[in-house]
């Protein structure tokens, strides 16, 4: 008689992966247990309000930041400064700290095998980790927005001058500010996806954390400073951190905004898909992944460069934008519009006169450097003469000169260069107190993708 061997019953032991919601909760618990994540969230909810209130009370304002020179005028400017500063510098750092570490941390702790045994599905782990990192980002972003608004309300809810000088009621400014925060979610997702990709590729290497941060800051510099065709600039996800600026002109510059959001979503989808494919192919029998630069270039950087090129091609084909997007015609139109609005404001505050911008029939004539220089592109050598008609005074024409410092992203600073009684520096009495002459220095914006 021989003994027979059977295997243990399997009817209740079929492989059962943990559901995504449970894995997501597990990931969220781990993320929120980290002090640096808690501190980051707290900073996002407290920092902007304190900053807006403190900076608005200072004599010198951050005029380099968009709407910075208006922080005395209205609290809404402070809330917009928060968005502008966060878009330029803070979001790349935030996304790299959160998303850039979400996979790397398992490599650093040596917990991948443990996690796989517990969850039993790499796919669900990927989904849960991605969702958890986005959730933490979504805990930070509303904090920045709400905190900035609260700080602005403490400073004072007064009308805001848009980027073409047109007056915006507090309600209008608030609505557009909230919409602008919604718009920057797209590039935040793109940067988070790039962070996930770096985290998957580089494992426990510190590059996983540093690359998204420095890559993001590099893209910010590229989209704001480096000379390149407008379509190529718009095809970077970082451009969408700036393209909300177009909401604050009248009419709004929606082309750049829509293109920026679409490009950001394309980057987000591509980077996430790459991260997913790489993660699913990973061999978890090795304890940790130290990453490799060669692999990063072939499976990470090159595909994203291809997305950049493709997006630039689509934007160029759709809009016909081939050059820098900045030319004399656009600057003249933008400057004349802004001047008209600020002239009306100045007249109200100094002479208590009520004009409309249309009555002024303002025009501008701009030239860049000397005749030997191409009359297009960014630079601080744009010089413009503004001409307007004085309402009520027959055939009386006024003229003022401005020096323009035009950034590659279409933003410019107009600096009054005479006559002094029009655009020189003097203090006038505004509803909120003494303020510089609004025609002395102001910010403006040209639409890079608008036809020349």
């Amino acid at each position, binding site marked *: 008689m021989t003994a027979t061997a059977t*295997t243990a019953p399997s009817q209740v032991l079929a492989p059962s992966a943990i559901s995504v919601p449970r894995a997501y*909760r*597990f990931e969220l618990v*781990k993320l929120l247990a980290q002090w640096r994540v808690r501190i980051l969230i707290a900073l996002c909810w407290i920092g902007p309000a304190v900053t807006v209130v403190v900076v608005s009370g200072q004599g010198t304002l951050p005029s380099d930041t968009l709407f910075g020179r208006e922080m005395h005028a209205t609290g809404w400017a402070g809330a917009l400064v928060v968005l502008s500063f966060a878009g330029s510098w803070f979001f790349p750092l935030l996304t790299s700290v959160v998303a850039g570490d979400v996979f790397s941390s398992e490599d650093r702790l*040596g917990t991948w095998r443990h996690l796989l045994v517990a969850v039993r599905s790499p796919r669900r782990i990927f989904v849960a980790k991605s969702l958890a990192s986005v959730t933490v980002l979504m805990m930070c972003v509303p904090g920045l927005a709400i905190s900035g608004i609260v700080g602005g309300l403490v400073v004072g809810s007064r009308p805001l001058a848009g980027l073409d000088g047109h007056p915006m009621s507090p309600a209008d400014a608030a609505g557009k500010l909230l919409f602008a925060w919604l718009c920057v979610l797209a590039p935040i997702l793109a940067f988070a996806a790039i962070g996930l990709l770096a985290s998957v590729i580089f494992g426990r290497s510190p590059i996983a954390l540093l690359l998204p941060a420095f890559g993001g800051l590099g893209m910010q510099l590229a989209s704001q400073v480096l000379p390149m065709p407008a379509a190529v600039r718009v095809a970077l996800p970082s451009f969408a951190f700036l393209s909300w600026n177009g909401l604050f002109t009248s009419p709004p510059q929606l082309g750049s905004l829509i293109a920026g959001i679409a490009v950001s979503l394309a980057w987000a989808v591509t980077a996430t898909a790459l991260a997913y494919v790489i993660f699913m192919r990973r*061999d978890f029998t090795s304890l940790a992944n130290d990453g490799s630069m060669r692999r990063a270039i072939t499976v990470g950087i090159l595909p994203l460069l291809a997305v950049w090129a493709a997006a630039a091609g689509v934007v160029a084909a759709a809009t016909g934008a081939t050059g820098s997007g900045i030319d004399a015609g656009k600057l003249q139109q933008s400057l004349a519009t802004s001047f008209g609005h600020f002239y009306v404001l100045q007249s109200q505050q100094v002479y208590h006169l009520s004009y409309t911008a249309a009555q002024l029939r303002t025009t501008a004539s701009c030239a860049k450097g000397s005749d030997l220089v191409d009359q297009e592109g960014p630079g601080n050598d744009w010089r413009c003469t503004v001409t307007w008609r004085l309402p009520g005074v027959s055939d009386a024409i006024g003229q003022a000169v401005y020096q323009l410092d035009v950034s590659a992203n279409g933003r410019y600073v107009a600096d009054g260069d005479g006559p002094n009684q029009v655009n020189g520096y003097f203090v006038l009495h505004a509803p909120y107190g003494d303020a510089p002459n609004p025609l002395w220095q102001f910010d403006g914006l040209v639409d890079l993708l608008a036809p020349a």
Partner: protein
Amino acid sequence: MLTEASMQRSYTVRARGLTKCFGDVVALDGVDLDVLAGQIHGVVGPNGAGKTTLFGLLLGLAVADRGTLEVLGTQVGRSHAAPDGVTGFVDGPALYPALTARGNLAALAALRGPGVPRAGIDDLLEQVGLTDVADDKVRGFSLGMRQRLGLAAALLTKPRLLVLDEPYNGLDPAGKKHVHGVLTRLAADGASVVLSSHRMDDVEALCSEVTIVSVGRVVFAGPLAKLADASGELDYRLVTSDQEAARRVAAGTDGVRVVDDAGTGADRDVMVVRALLPALDDLVPRLVRAGVSVRELTPVVSPLESAFLALTEQQEQESSR
């Protein structure tokens, strides 16, 4: 006569011809493994023998290139994950340092759903002797404490097969006692435990069967008793009431050699004899008849360790040829 129970032997693990390669490196080469339900099975072997790779296959972390693996009645392979009821750790337990001991277990329990109440977590912490540090961050835990918490984490899912790689690393005697107790109770409840250890005394104390692997191949598999039979002559420490008389009796017993006759210094009350088990069985009554009390008779090197060394050296020599 075979009983019905012994006829129906239930296997938790049945592996046949498992082969796993990493590039040019053959980590496992045709490995067979049988683990019965309710059995604590030791897998021993030198570093790089393939133990961790084998454990990775059992846990579903990797898939064998060739061979078949059946765990808890389920085929495990490229398209089939390890079944529910299998848990454990390789290369030490993995825990999250920002969470407390209780927090780690609670987070893992929440993964599985609302089935594990707080009392269950407290009970597990008590079983592994970590109640006093339950609310401390794992960041400050010693290796032994982490091992015990890792075991508690593995027990959360009420496993049918527990796979533990070096669970005794860093454990103090109290910790070892806790782990022994937990594993023994688990096996008594019908679960199987597969563990590896470089501490042969621990393996001998816990395991009923062992598999010795060397350079990716199985060089022995079976009960420990069979291993002792196969291991040939062993050296034994012998302490008696009269060492001089004992030495004379041992020298006069067939199959027994006194290999340490120094009898000087601190060890003058200890002698070492070399013998097969039957000869040793003959020596003990002879000593008693000679009026010599036997106070200690223990192998200098355990049968498992001795066999392990002999078998692995032999395998390595064959591989190097």
